[in-house]
């Protein structure tokens, strides 16, 4: 089954940040197919909506984090995942790198950074 190239799933547990990301995404003419605050929600939405891109925070509500969610999505859906994290801890970075991320962005992110990353991935 194919993925929707114009769909983006946003995974973050902070409203203001998801709203910011939504503005960036929509400014680029893409569609936000869902906003998830937990890993389980993220996997469920990805399976249901089959987005080509996922913007993934690492720290989430619940026991499982963004890396866990990303692994599941990679396995069941195959979406490309851009990690957006506030953390630079080596352990976290190592886990992210194991998951073949499409990009890793650090907070604070500026719209230019995100736009550049999305453009690059869509062009691949």
């Amino acid at each position, binding site marked *: 089954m194919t993925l929707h190239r114009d769909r983006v799933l946003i995974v973050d547990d*902070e409203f*203001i*940040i998801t*709203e*910011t990301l939504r*503005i960036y995404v929509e400014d680029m003419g893409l569609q936000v197919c869902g906003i998830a605050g937990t890993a389980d929600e993220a996997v469920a939405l990805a399976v249901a909506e089959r987005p080509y891109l996922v913007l993934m925070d690492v720290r989430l509500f619940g026991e499982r984090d963004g890396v866990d969610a990303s692994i599941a999505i990679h396995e069941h859906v195959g979406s490309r995942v851009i990690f957006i994290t*506030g*953390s*630079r*801890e080596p352990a976290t970075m190592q886990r992210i790198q194991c998951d073949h991320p499409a990009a890793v962005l*650090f*907070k*604070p*992110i*500026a*719209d*230019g*950074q995100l736009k550049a990353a999305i453009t690059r991935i869509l062009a691949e």
Partner: protein
Amino acid sequence: MTLTDWLFNPTGLTPHGFCLSWAPGLIALHVISDAVIALSYFSIPLAIASFVRKRPDLEYGWVAQLFVGFIVACGATHAWSILTLWSPAYGVEGILKAVTAILSVATAVLLWPLIPKLAALPSAAQLQADNCELDRRVAERTMALEEANARLVETMRARDEADAALASAEAQFRASFEAAAVGKVQTDPSDARIIRVNKAFADMLGYRPEELIGRCGWELTAADDLDADREAYQEVLEGRAPAYVREKRYVTRSGALIWGRVSATIVHAPATGQPVLTVAVVEDIDEQHIARAALVRAKQELEELVAQRTAALAQRDLLLREVYHRVKNNLQIVDGMLLMQSRKLDDPDAVAALGAMRKRVFALGLVHHQLMGSADLRTFDVGAFLADLAQQLQAGGAQDVTLVVDAAPLQVDLDFAVPLGLLVTELATNALKHAFPTGRGQVTVTLAPTDDDHVVLRVADNGVGILATPPERKPSLGLTIVHGLVQQMRGRIAPIEGDGVCWEARLPAPRIT
């Protein structure tokens, strides 16, 4: 005729003087001659008898007795001849002569066969020679004896010396054994019975030396150490190990345990090779052991403390990272709210103002991002920070305007980086905004240390060369922030002449403690 008559007057004849006609001269001659002869004859045998009596060892002494007998008899006949001058006692005279005759004949008869024997008797000269020889031999023997005696004396002296040396060695050994500061024990290898201990060893265990004699050495070893100690001792006894050296616990009289270091060797009989004596030196190392144990405890405590401190430091690092993370997240939220707000505004000035605000917020967030990635969570290199900042400032601007950063290596902390980041944000934003109406040009940000503990920040453009604020308007927020921050940093800032606009700020170098 009676015997008396026969003896004294046998014939009735006249005395002998009558025959001499009583001639006084003649009578006197006879009397004197006979008297002298008789006296002489009585004297000679007396001398001989005396001599013989004094030399009882004389060989053939009986010959001398015979001489004494016949001479006395001769003397008696002469003496009786004087009497017969006046008395006709011829019977007695005859008897005396007969006796004299018998003795004389006997002597004469016995003397002849004796001659060779007497001749064989050594002469005085012979005796003298013999005597000399004897003296020489005696002298030789005496010398030999003296030599033997001297040897004997020497031997005895040597033996005395050896005895003295032995006694001295024994005394020395005793002294070194008894008076040694370390404990010394001698035991029987077969059953470990104690034969001898010194005071130091007994004192160590709270006993008197004599109380330990005959006790089994293993009774004094702590029960927990006993098996291992016996095994080690057995190895030495069987020659599998060269020496028995162990640190072990002894049981004192009061039942307390004390640590000792024992070194034992086994003495073997030279002839049979059998073990005959175990000699042990025991050192009291209880205090050392206590001190060592205390040291080990102290080290453990120190290690625990270090581990605690390390954990506390790790915890602190974790907390710091968490704080930076949250600060960044909150700044991201502020940024998000500013973005959301700007979307609701129609006034382009207001939108621009919020845009400028978002850049300032981003600069603050970037400082915390750098701090999170630094090893000590306190300092980072200013170069990477300024490069990230420039990239963000440039984003969304004109394609042909470039922003170049040239920063010397410099470690900065939060207190320095925050105002510096804001300063660069304001000056570069200003340049990007006003210097290039044509949309082409370059903004250069340089940061270099000086020799006098300062850093010089330059933000220069090659644009149209118009200072930001026209004189008729009130100063912009950007410039107010710039001047305020430079003042806060105890620095100076001034525009300098060039192709475009160039701001140069001279700031005290960051003090990293």
